[in-house]
């Protein structure tokens, strides 16, 4: 299911239309916001003006009436003070005042207790306008001690005229006003300035309430008036009248705004406040009422003031929203139509992308950006087709090269010995080797073979990868074989290989590290030469490293002099050779297997006395466990050989030493005949052995001592275990290794053949094995013949 966001993202026309509408909405919003803000301000100012005007007019109207009352009081006190000797006249004055001022509800002229001693404690003349019927009485009595009343005392204590708080009078023993009244009270003072009583003029608050309540600038607005104690004296909610103050509701629901309004009104301030009253947002306009200490307020709900404005706002917002929606639809259509060629282009290029390169791109002749884009795609299509053709050719070539490289890789693998054990008939040598190639054809090599009871072996690593490395490996491998075919000195072999490898290698900058060893199997005498390769390990009772000179790798310096090192390999020892693919095998964290791990594994192998194959398997398992799934970056080659020379149980041991005189050959023949008989050999076999030995000894006699032949000696030692006869020819002459001589080419004439060649050929033919060693300045040639 496509989400709305995805739906929009999938179409440029939708996105474009939405962006346009979005920015249009922002612009509308800013413009309308400004307009609304200005309008709001104007409406507010208009409302303020309107409410303030009405409030001012009302206050003015009320004040004019209140002032009339105050004028009446001012015009009366001289009358009272002028007739104090006739208290009863006070009743007349109160009546006259009411008659002349119908807006007055009552009038009292009250005197201090016992002021007129003949009239007792109380004297207060009071007239009351009972709907036009004026009643007059002396209102003071035990139930109405008027001199404790607020209206009396306030003027007395303040010593000035004052309006009382509105109140309900109650005089159970006489007439009294039933209306809520407020009194304007003026203190009376005699000629000495001594207070003698109070004139009080009562006005009913009914008309005041009506006047103030009539102020209604808005349909739901209302007016109110509070006294100096905050009590509501005018309010549309009659349950609040007299019973509550403006602060009452804040006791249970604290409301700072209302409290502050109340205090401002009590302080006689004039102003406008915005607050929440009875759950509605309101504007309150308030103003004090003359000298009364009361305050009038108009409460206008915000809705009323801003009703028209809010309606207008809603309509405008509605129109804008509809407009934006229409804009979205129209723009969507226009943009969609304009982008149609683009969609067509997208479909056509999609088809091209799927491999349909023959797809025709439409050209509607437009010259705008879309037209140019379309043309660019046409050009691109042509370029693409050309490029793909090129790519196909390149790919084919690459595939061919890869295929050839695979063949090369298999050929390379085939060059290395693959059959293990390689010398199943031999008990003295157990050898196992492996080369685990990396993905590409690589340059590791190993090889071994036995010639003349000598095991030639090598492990090498060509720098780099790929075909050049593989070719150099093959070359090096061939060189090893060819160089060691007739040479038993590792340094010489190494030098020969190096010289050949160096030829034309300066441009390739390739080199080969190699360890080359020649193990003399009868003696365990190991001669070796190292060319920059890692030193092999010797596994015996303990693990040790074969001491090697580092030397330069092959292929770097053609004049490089390599030297042979030698040692004697103890029986049971195992040599372990490897390439750096082992120590540098890396896991996914790019951590190398390292020498440390190799040595730990080989030490374990030492302890377990494992065979070469087991050693290689163990090492490989450890490497595999270490690298896990990480790809193999380099060839990994290991070669392990264990040397266990068989014990030769000597049944027979004879020797004969002859000076280099051909005339002593018959002694030699007798010696052999004798041994042959003792070993119960077949006469034909004795004859073969005799012939081979004679060739070898004559060869020594003739050539070993070129300068002092007569002083030269040759010794022949014969040993046998009953199964094999070993004849060792020893001389101290010039070094001469007959095994290095190529087999005689019997196709050549006698004159053309090199000296001795035929003799050696004969010896090889007659004996099973021959072996040469030069030890301590002596040539030691061993001839072996199986007796069984």
């Amino acid at each position, binding site marked *: 299911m496509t989400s709305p966001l995805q739906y929009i993202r999938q179409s440029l026309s939708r996105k474009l239309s939405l962006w346009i509408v979005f920015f249009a909405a922002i612009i509308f919003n800013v413009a309308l916001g400004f307009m609304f803000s200005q309008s709001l301000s104007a409406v507010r100012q208009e409302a303020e003006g309107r409410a303030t005007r009405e409030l001012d007019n009302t206050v003015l109207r009320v004040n004019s009436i209140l002032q009339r009352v105050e004028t009446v009081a001012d015009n009366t006190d001289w009358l009272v003070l002028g007739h104090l000797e006739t208290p009863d006249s006070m009743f007349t004055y109160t009546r006259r005042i009411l008659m002349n001022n119908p807006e007055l509800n009552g009038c009292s002229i009250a005197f201090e207790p016992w002021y007129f001693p003949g009239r007792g404690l109380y004297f207060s003349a009071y007239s009351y306008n009972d709907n036009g019927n004026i009643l007059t009485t002396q209102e003071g009595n*035990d139930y109405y*001690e008027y001199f404790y009343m*607020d209206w009396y005392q306030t003027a007395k204590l303040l010593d000035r005229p004052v309006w009382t*708080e509105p109140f*309900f009078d109650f005089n*159970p023993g006489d007439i009294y006003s039933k209306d809520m009244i407020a009194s304007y009270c003026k203190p009376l003072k005699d000629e000495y300035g001594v207070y003698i009583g109070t004139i009080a003029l009562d006005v009913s608050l009914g008309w005041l309430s009506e006047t103030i309540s009539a102020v209604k600038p808005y349909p739901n607005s209302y007016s109110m008036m509070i006294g100096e104690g905050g009590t509501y004296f005018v309010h549309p909610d009659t349950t609040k009248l007299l019973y509550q103050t403006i*602060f009452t509701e804040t*006791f249970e629901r604290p409301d700072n705004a209302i409290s502050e309004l109340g205090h401002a009104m009590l302080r006689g301030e004039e102003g406008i406040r915005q607050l929440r009253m009875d759950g509605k947002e309101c504007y309150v306009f308030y103003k004090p009422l003359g000298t009364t200490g009361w305050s009038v307020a108009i409460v206008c709900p915000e809705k009323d003031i801003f009703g028209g404005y809010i309606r207008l706002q809603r309509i405008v917002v509605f129109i804008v929203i509809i407009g934006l929606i229409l804009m979205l639809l129209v723009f969507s259509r226009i943009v969609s139509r304009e982008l149609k060629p683009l969609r067509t282009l997208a479909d056509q290029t999609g088809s091209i992308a799927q491999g349909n390169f023959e797809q025709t791109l439409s050209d509607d002749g437009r010259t705008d950006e879309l037209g140019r884009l379309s043309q660019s795609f046409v050009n691109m299509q042509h370029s693409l087709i050309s490029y793909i053709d090129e790519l196909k050719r390149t790919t084919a070539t690459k595939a061919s090269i890869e295929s050839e490289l695979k063949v090369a890789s298999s050929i390379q693998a085939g060059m290395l010995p693959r059959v293990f054990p390689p010398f199943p008939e031999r008990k003295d040598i157990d050898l196992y080797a492996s080369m685990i190639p990396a993905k590409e054809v690589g340059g590791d090599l190993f090889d071994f073979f036995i010639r003349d009871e000598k095991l030639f072996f090598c492990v090498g690593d060509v720098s780099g990868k790929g075909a050049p490395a593989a070719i150099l490996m093959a070359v090096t491998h061939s060189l090893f074989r060819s160089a060691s075919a007739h040479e038993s000195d590792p340094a010489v072999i190494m030098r020969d290989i190096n010289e050949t490898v160096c030829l034309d290698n300066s441009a390739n900058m390739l080199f080969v590290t190699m360890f080359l060893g020649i193990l003399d199997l009868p003696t365990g005498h190991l001669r070796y030469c190292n060319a920059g390769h890692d030193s092999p390990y010797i596994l015996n009772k303990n693990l040790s490293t074969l001491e090697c000179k580092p030397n330069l790798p092959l292929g770097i310096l053609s004049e490089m002099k390599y030297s042979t090192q030698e040692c004697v390999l103890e029986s049971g020892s195992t040599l372990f050779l490897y390439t750096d693919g082992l120590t540098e095998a890396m896991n996914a964290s790019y951590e190398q297997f390292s020498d440390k791990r190799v040595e730990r594994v080989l030490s374990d192998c030492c302890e377990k006395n494992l065979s070469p194959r087991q050693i290689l398997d163990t090492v490989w398992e450890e490497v595999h466990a270490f690298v896990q799934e990480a790809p193999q970056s380099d060839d990994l080659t290991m070669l392990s050989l264990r040397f266990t020379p068989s014990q030769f149980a000597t049944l027979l041991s004879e020797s004969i030493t002859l000076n280099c005189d051909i005339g002593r050959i018959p002694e030699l023949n007798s010696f052999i005949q004798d041994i042959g008989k003792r070993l119960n050999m077949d006469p034909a076999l004795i004859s073969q052995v005799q012939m081979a030995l004679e060739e070898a000894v004559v060869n020594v006699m003739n050539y070993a001592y070129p300068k002092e032949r007569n002083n030269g000696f040759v010794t022949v030692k014969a040993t046998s275990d009953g199964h094999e006869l070993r004849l060792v020819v020893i001389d101290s002459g010039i070094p001469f290794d007959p095994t290095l001589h190529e087999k005689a080419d019997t196709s050549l004439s006698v004159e053309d053949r090199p000296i001795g060649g035929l003799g050696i050929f004969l010896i090889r033919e007659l004996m099973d094995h021959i072996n040469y060693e030069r030890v301590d300045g002596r040539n030691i040639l061993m001839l072996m013949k199986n007796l069984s």
Partner: protein
Amino acid sequence: MGFYREAGIEVDIVHPSATLSAMNRIRRNESQATTLQVCQAMEIIDSGIPLVNILQTSMNNAMVIVSRRNADPLTQKGARVGIWSVGFGQLAICMSQKDKLNYEWVRFATNVNLFIKGAIDATLAMSYNEYYQLLQAGYELNDNNVYRFCDHGYNVQEDGVYVTREYYSKHKAQAKAFADASRRGWEWAAEHPEETLDIVMKYVQQNHIATNRTMQKLMLQEILRLQLDRESGKREFRLREDMVKLASDLMVEYNMLGNEVSYEQLIQD
């Protein structure tokens, strides 16, 4: 009149006028029982009319002095101070003399308008009545401008129900039944404040009394608080001998009583 009806007595509660005290009705035999403050009762006994306290509702003094202009009442020497015209405020007069404040007492009838109008500098007020009226009028009352008598060694009980000793000797059982029913009424009010307010507001509306439920709620809470004895924390409904002694000593010392009025003179036989 539920509890009175249950007690088998017929009661007519009459409100005195703004200036005529309830005691005047007793004197005139218009009423048989009235509420009086302890100090008022002592004055009346001292004037030669023996009274019996048949029920004491207040356990603490509720009187305070509130002064204008946020001034400490104790610094207002010679100030005009409002006092009820119906005769409460004896302890305030004692305190004024004792602390040599020489207040000029201005008697007022019912409300706090003189104070609000600024005609007086300070006024006596009951913590359950005028005190809240002033708060409702927007006055800020605090420790600085309010002096509470109960916290300054004048904690003398106030309202109790009294009958003349003469009446008491003749109608002991009726007086006791009236007192018990009144006490039950107060206990019920303490347990059912909302229902009590409902009843009060019914009579407020019937008689157009200038008050409101918020005000009555605050009054009821304060009166119920004043009914708890400070030491025991319980509603004890008894006159405390120590408080009677304190009031008597003060009033004798400042010439408001001719003779000491003892606890025994106030209590029932």
